[in-house]
């Protein structure tokens, strides 16, 4: 446990995490809680059954404003921004000319001339450079506003009831992947019905100096401390929740070596929307077919697959695990991996090389977990 060579970045909730017993780790240069005293499993289960609270203020925010905002973002991302209406958001990707992924992101449309891009923490600077570098003669302004926003995710079946008394926004009128501007505990905020857990819930964006106020208010409203109350959740639970929900994590399932089609993200590839970076490569790959594909698997033997381990099919090493972990709610050991397309068949038996031992697994459908609606 040596001292970090460079000063870690801190979210406005850093002190709150430490006071609550959060175990802090270096996450892509950020000093973040990996878990709280309740532990990862309890945090995960509580989010599935009640509510969990996540500090995701490390995420980056890039504002794009001006008459050409939509056409510009449409040119650098794969989903069709022209389909968004005011108050709507979508999942998308910044793509390379090869159709691989610079980053995955959310695009929020406030107005035709005002968009907000929410990007991963570890890639914020890379994304900023990429986006700024892609800019041509468009009439627009770009602002890296990452240090102006805090972002707090309230997730789980109780989320709506917890947030309701604290906000003037009519939550039940916000559809999934829509958002509204209003107040949370009297503080100007963006309330977005989005998340990374597979549960219903909201992500609240507000000014950094109000982060602690909102965080504490949500914990109180969620009866933190009660057996069935809300729990603050660390990065470990955030990861197991998203994995159960079959969602990609940048740097694991997707990066600059994987195309969107290989990663099962064809649904955010709008090849007919007009030109965008990587469109040609993706259109070509769609015709020629992909040679490998991201699959989900669950272990059929005792053992836990981990990131980077080899996938073995018919005695041949054919791919790598991108994420592997216990799934606390499903009580199984699951993972995702790239395998050759011709072998990517649901139900097929595979093996994972777990530190030198071949452990049996089976290809299954993703998402592993889907909430009842």
């Amino acid at each position, binding site marked *: *446990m040596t001292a970090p060579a460079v000063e870690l970045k801190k979210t406005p909730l850093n002190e709150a995490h430490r006071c609550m017993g959060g*175990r802090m780790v270096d996450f892509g240069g950020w000093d973040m809680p990996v878990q709280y005293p309740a532990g*990862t499993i309890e945090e995960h289960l509580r989010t599935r059954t009640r509510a969990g609270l996540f500090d995701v203020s490390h995420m980056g925010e890039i504002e794009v404003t001006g008459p050409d905002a939509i056409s510009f973002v449409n040119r650098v991302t794969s989903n069709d921004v022209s389909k968004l209406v005011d108050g709507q958001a979508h999942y998308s990707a910044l793509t390379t000319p090869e159709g691989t992924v610079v980053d995955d992101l959310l695009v929020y449309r406030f107005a035709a001339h005002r968009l907000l891009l929410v990007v991963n923490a570890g890639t914020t600077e890379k994304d900023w450079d990429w986006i700024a570098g892609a800019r041509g003669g468009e009439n627009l302004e770009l602002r890296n506003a990452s240090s102006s926003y805090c972002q707090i995710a309230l997730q789980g079946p109780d989320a709506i009831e917890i947030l309701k008394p604290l906000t003037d926004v009519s939550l039940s009128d916000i559809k999934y992947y829509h958002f509204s501007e209003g107040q949370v505990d009297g503080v100007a905020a963006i309330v977005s019905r989005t998340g990374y857990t597979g549960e219903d819930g909201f992500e609240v964006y507000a000014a950094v100096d109000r982060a602690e106020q909102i965080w504490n208010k949500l914990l109180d409203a969620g009866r933190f401390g009660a057996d069935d109350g809300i729990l603050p959740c660390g990065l*470990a639970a955030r*990861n*197991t929740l998203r994995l159960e929900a079959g969602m990609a994590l940048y740097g694991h399932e997707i990066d600059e070596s994987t195309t969107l089609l290989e990663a099962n993200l064809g649904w955010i590839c709008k090849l007919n929307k007009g030109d965008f970076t990587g469109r040609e490569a993706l259109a070509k790959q769609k015709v020629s077919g992909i040679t490998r594909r991201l699959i989900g698997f669950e272990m059929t033997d005792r*053992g*836990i697959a981990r990131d980077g381990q080899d996938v073995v099919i018919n005695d041949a090493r054919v791919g790598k695990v991108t994420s592997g972990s216990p799934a606390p709610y499903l009580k199984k050991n699951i993972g995702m991996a790239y395998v050759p397309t011709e072998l990517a068949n649901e139900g097929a038996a595979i093996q994972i090389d777990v530190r030198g031992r071949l452990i049996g697994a089976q290809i299954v459908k993703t998402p592993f977990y889907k909430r009842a609606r």
Partner: protein
Amino acid sequence: MANVPDNLHYSKDHEWVRVDGDVAIVGITDYAQNSLGDVVYVELPKAGDEFAAHEAFGSVESVKAVSEVFSPVTGSVVEVNSSLNDEPEKVNNEPYEAGWMIRVKMQTPLEVDSLLTAAEYEDFTKAEKE
């Protein structure tokens, strides 16, 4: 503050040893289980397997990570705690009792004298934390 019982011996790899004649009962310390977080899987050797001191005899997995567990002494395994297959959480809840991992017949019982005392181990974990 981690619990460090006085009557045990400790390794710098965060295992404890309870001496029972020429048999060493081995597990991981409270400090170790707390650092790992929720233990979800324990891989243990078989009775009869032999290990040298500081050799890995198994692994403990939390949700997030895998850690090897090292034998603090040289000898052969006479019994493993197979109840950890179904209840790995015992390692978290009772690291010095129900969470024990293996019983090793020691080749040289005096070897335990080279391990840390409770007070020494406490100082060691404090230093490691800083």
